[in-house]
């Protein structure tokens, strides 16, 4: 009867959140509301259940060589207890998935895939593993995963850990105990803010106690900072403000990382990897279209699939994501437009239902990085 998948924290969400179905999982959309949850993360701290994401462990003497063959970023540079953002492509250079992966030990990696791509990624890894001495293990269902994000994330977690969390640098991770539970803590996230992601080992859905314990301890520790539990609604508006891609919206197998402005994760000087030839060719020929940030100058919210038109009213592209920015209080989004028209400051039209509304191409992130995000120079309010 009930076909939706659930996470270890479903029991908590059911009582406290408005639920939605995402990638087949019954997940919190919001608890208090998207805007207050979003602003809690930008100004202080919020906690998310992201157990719906996929987790795959890759071990073996060929693990590095195997991953370096499949992904576009350079695995050889990654030290143990470090993380890196990357994509993996098909032979045509189309993006199979974007993800953060971790080097846990010299020959042990963890790969965190988008919820929508859990099965696809696993199958892609297994299919390409021929000839490599690797073991690929899907552990998603026995590991819970939380994100604690915002300028007060470290202070919050420090209260429930005896390790010095300030020693974990950005994109580094460490095995430690949080609220007396064994976890892997990494300074990563999907909001643009300072923050952590927490992997809670040995916590299957049939025995979710550890996940509930850590979740409650974080909420309790964050109380003085006004912590909010956050749903997928705020997760989406936060990643959009930060200019981060959502697989299935902004990138998919029909887009390449070069078109998606993810060239920084493509290391073309590496030895052969899947999609290299196609990407090299595209780089030499020049990309025809590019993912850009769109900020509305007039009223209206650009939604996915809305047309982008030039000043003569000709369609030149379309929105792939769009929302109301709770921080900037205007419509923002991402779109693919021809490279010739992708320069910052260019004014275009978004067709919102039957009307044209003026919008400007802006750099990512959408907010002022001096005031918000992990690079902020000013203390939070």
């Amino acid at each position, binding site marked *: 009867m009930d076909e939706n998948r659930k996470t270890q924290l479903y029991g908590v969400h059911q009582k406290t959140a408005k639920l939605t179905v995402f990638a087949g999982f019954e997940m919190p959309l919001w608890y208090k509301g*998207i*805007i207050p949850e979003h602003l809690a993360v930008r100004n202080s701290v919020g906690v998310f259940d992201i157990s719906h994401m996929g987790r795959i462990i890759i071990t073996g003497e060929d693990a590095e060589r195997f991953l370096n063959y499949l992904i576009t970023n350079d695995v050889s540079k990654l030290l143990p207890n470090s993380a890196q953002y990357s994509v993996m492509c098909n032979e045509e250079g189309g993006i199979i998935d974007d993800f953060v992966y971790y080097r846990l030990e010299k020959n042990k990696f963890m790969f965190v895939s988008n919820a929508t791509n859990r099965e696809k990624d696993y199958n892609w890894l297994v299919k390409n593993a021929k000839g490599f001495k690797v073991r690929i293990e899907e552990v998603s269902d026995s590991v819970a995963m939380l994100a604690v994000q915002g300028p007060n994330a470290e202070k919050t977690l420090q209260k429930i850990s005896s390790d010095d969390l300030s020693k974990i640098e950005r994109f580094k991770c460490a095995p430690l105990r949080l609220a007396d539970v064994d976890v892997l803590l990494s300074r990563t996230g999907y909001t643009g803010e300072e923050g952590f992601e927490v992997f809670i080992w040995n916590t299957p859905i049939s025995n979710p106690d550890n996940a509930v314990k850590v979740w409650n301890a974080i909420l309790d520790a964050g109380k003085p900072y006004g912590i909010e539990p956050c749903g997928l609604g705020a997760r989406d508006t936060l990643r959009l403000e930060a200019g981060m891609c959502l697989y299935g919206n902004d990138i998919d197998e029909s887009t390449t990382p070069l078109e998606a402005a993810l060239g920084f994760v493509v290391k073309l000087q590496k030895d052969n990897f899947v999609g290299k030839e196609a990407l090299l060719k595209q780089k030499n020929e020049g990309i025809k279209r590019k993912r850009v940030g769109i900020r509305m100058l007039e*009223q209206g*919210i650009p939604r996915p699939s809305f047309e982008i038109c030039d000043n003569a009213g000709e369609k030149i592209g379309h929105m792939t994501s769009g929302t*109301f920015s*709770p921080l900037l*209080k205007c419509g923002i989004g991402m779109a693919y437009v021809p490279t010739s028209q992708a320069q910052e400051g260019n004014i275009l039209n978004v067709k919102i239902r039957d009307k044209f509304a003026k919008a400007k191409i802006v750099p990512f992130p959408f907010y002022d990085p001096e005031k918000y995000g992990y690079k902020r120079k000013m203390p939070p309010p």
Partner: protein
Amino acid sequence: MVKVDGYEVPEGLYYTKDFEWLKIEGDKVRVGITDYAQKQLREIVYAELPSPGTTIKQNEPYGTVESVKAVSDLVAPISGEILEVNTEVQSKPELLNEDPYGKGWLLIIKPSNLQGELPNLMNFNQAVEWHKTLIK
């Protein structure tokens, strides 16, 4: 006023299944969205409304309201000419969430066929029963 599972349904108003209310004020009518509608949308951030002088037709869309996540058409409860538009909800759309039957009103209309079209709307008792079916 009664509450049906937390959703306010005031007496003395007429209602449509497009989640709008209508109040007769002499020879004019005032319209807005219901408490149920605003609670479903939540966090309304835009209201796109026509200008005074525009003619609208019963059951046809005349504007939109948008929340962070969703867009919803506003559908005319009655035909007529728009006399007044609540400009305050355009600058403060949160009024639609805070006070949908009061400060969050949308339009004042001079109806062209009130007696003919009013039977297409639900009265208070019918609206209460209909709200009960929404919650099931």
